[in-house]
């Protein structure tokens, strides 16, 4: 459990930036990123949090999410930053929010950010994933051996779709200096940890964030390729 912080407006005399951590399990994993944002806007109001709103004609809550989570994925820890003008303690924020949740979503942490802290999105460096296989879709090869081979290799070059280039390509139209829509990438550099577990799941820690975001699918695909599947 996260330590309890005392959040007190008198001490700061200005709006506070909180970093909220939440988990998402069960059927709610089908709620997409935009809808999760809407969900939390409503949750904040139901919980009676004193959220800071932006200026202008259509004020919105000052809230920013770290990373979108793919539809269908469960998560132990997702993050967003929230500006509030008042809050008694991190525990009070957590309690208020959790007493108005939908089943499967739970706030598990809340800390006060220092003034110079980067926003949630910029703070992301890596993500941990556990990949489990649905019945009938288990890998038909020795995953443990393939993972060991992957870990032992010096590099693993894959082709990753270059989104920027792919977009540009459309606007280039007909020029012969078209940039490739795929770029070569050494996956090894971005996989910080990879192992199999007794329950036949694959655990990985991969680069994440706005710069080099590696989706777990990419790693699994590489493992299947390596196994010759």
């Amino acid at each position, binding site marked *: 459990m996260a330590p309890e912080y005392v959040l007190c407006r008198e001490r700061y005399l200005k709006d506070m930036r909180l970093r909220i951590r939440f988990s998402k*399990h*069960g*059927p*709610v994993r*089908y*709620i*997409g990123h935009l*809808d999760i944002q*809407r*969900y939390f*806007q*409503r*949750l*904040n*109001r*139901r919980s009676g949090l004193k959220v800071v*709103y932006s200026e202008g*004609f259509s*004020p919105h809550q000052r809230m920013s999410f770290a990373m979108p989570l793919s*539809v*269908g994925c469960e998560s132990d820890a997702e993050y967003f930053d929230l500006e509030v003008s008042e809050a008694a303690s991190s525990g009070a924020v957590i309690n208020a929010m959790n007493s*108005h949740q*939908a*089943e*499967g979503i739970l706030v598990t942490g809340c800390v006060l950010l220092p003034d110079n802290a980067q926003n949630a999105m910029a703070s992301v460096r890596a993500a941990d994933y556990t990949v489990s296989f*649905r019945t009938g879709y288990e890998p038909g090869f020795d995953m443990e051996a393939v993972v060991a081979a992957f870990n032992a290799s010096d590099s693993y070059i894959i082709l990753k779709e270059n989104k920027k280039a792919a977009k540009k390509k459309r606007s280039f139209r007909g020029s012969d200096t078209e940039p490739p829509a795929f770029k070569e990438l050494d996956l090894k550099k971005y996989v910080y940890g990879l192992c199999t577990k007794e329950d036949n799941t694959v655990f990985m820690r991969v680069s994440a964030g706005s710069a080099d975001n590696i989706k777990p699918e990419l790693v699994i695909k590489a493992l299947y390729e390596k196994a010759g599947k």
Partner: protein
Amino acid sequence: MRKTALSDEILLSVEHPERYIGGEINSVQKNKEDIAVRFAMCFPDVYEIGMSHLGIQILYEMFNKRTDVWCERVYSPWLDLDRIMREKHIPLFALESQDPVRCFDFLGITLQYEMCYTNVLQILDLSDIPLKASERDPDAPLGECPIVIGGGPCAYNPEPVAPFFDMFYIGEGERRYDELLELYISVKKQGGTRLDFLEGAAHIEGIYIPSFYKPVYNDDGTYAGREKLDRYAPDRVVKAVCTGLDDAPYPLKPVVPFIKVTQDRVVLEIQRGCIRGCRFCQAGMIYRPVREKSLDTLKGYAKAMVEATGDDEISLSSLSSSDYSKIAELVKWLVETYKDKFINISLPSLRIDHVFLEMMETVQDSKKGSLTFAPEAGSQRMRDVINKGITEEDIMQGSAICFTAGYSKVKLYFMLGLPGETDEDVTAIAHLANGVAMNYFDTVPKEERKGIRVQVTSSTSFFVPKPFTPFQWSAMDTPDEFLRKAHLVNETMENEPNHKSLKYQYHESDLSKLEGVFARGDRRVAEVILTAYGKGCMYDSWTESFDSVKWDEAFRECGLDAGFYTLRERPLDESFPWDFIDIGVTKDFLEKEYLRSKEALITPNCRDKCSGCGAARFGTGICTVPGKVSEGYEA
């Protein structure tokens, strides 16, 4: 954690899987073991539409308040999931428990518009319930197959879908459902059959059991009446009316969807019914008399609902909000209470006048959106025919006020194909739009226009005569005639002096034809619906899935002529299949109104003067204002 009825693979392959997972905020979970009656409440359209409907939320609240009932929600699976469910034989399920609808005690289906009729069949089909009530075993013990019950405005002429339902609930749900549920529980306890329950239910006011009657037709195809097939079948069915709206159930904790739905805000129903009596409007007749909710009730609702949902907008709901006697006071309170809480107030269906504008000024700071007027008809003569108590002067004054206040966009709503409409009435639509645009130039001096061009958008819909309106005798235009009139409006508009400021939109006409048949159809129409469904018709109100060719085929195969239902001006002495329903408003009154419409005579609204429509017998609402109700009204 709850389990979903659909597998991961299916949920990941369909559009908006959130439609099917349930578990929304304020959705109700109960322990099935403690429940006597499981009720599946269905809106036969896609989730986003169905979830926006207030009526279902009211019943959901009312049913779930009972500890012995668990009410869950069901919506039409969208076409992508529909295909998968048929392929893989996955039964339709309710959202809360994710259990198959087939194992429920009731399947309630609300009929909000006629074009959902094939979706009713989709719901029954996917639930594995026999499509026709006659194929559901009357001697089976209760609980074997859900009782299929219909309600909503289209239930006021239930005949076109009568064969698919075990019963209809005519009127306002708040009133009689408890009685019906008690009856079900006691019959089930005694080991009674489906028929036992239906016969008992026939005694409850507002309940109609279609299988207890057999319609009879004249040689010319018109409806002659009906034969009773059951000893307990009553002659008439009186609509259920809720008399104490302030004490009636209301969804103070409405379900909050995860996805964005059409009505995504707190809805305050400020009154039911309407004082106006527009002659084309079914709601204006079937919800008579008008009943207001008190200011205190509404304030309490707003507070509770905002707290329970976290919504950032409150919207008022009623047929004509300006006629609510304390509208200005209510809006003022809402604005003052919520202004600093970042909660918007939206005010639909208001008359545009000074009071309105003052309210608008308090509601939105300086964002000038577009304003909507619904003159419904272009010429004054036609507006008198339909008893739309709005004059050209009202529109000009209203729009002038708006223009002066800085608005530059106006929307105008009209109907085409109204009874007795001439080409002059049709072109008057374009002239009126032009007049509004001109009004802008007259009202706003050049230096204040800031280069903004006034924009007047007119849209027309095609008029469909509805049962229980003074136009229930009227003929409807053919689709070709509709289109000709729409083109005429367009052409006239292009030739107006201010045509650059005018925009015109109209909707397709094939859909209207079908709507016309369903609205005033008889029981024979059910066969056409069944046949069209068999050909794959579904989601007919969605242009992407509406297939007029299949419908034409279905009519041909069933040997029915759509024109018989829509194109005839019906004689005054013709019996209608819906005559057995008593809505309070008498057929006599409707007939008088129909005849007055032919002379373009205006009838005053209920507040100005009672016209003795018949609804006073319910002893509630505006009719109980002392000295209000008169015996008749002079022509």
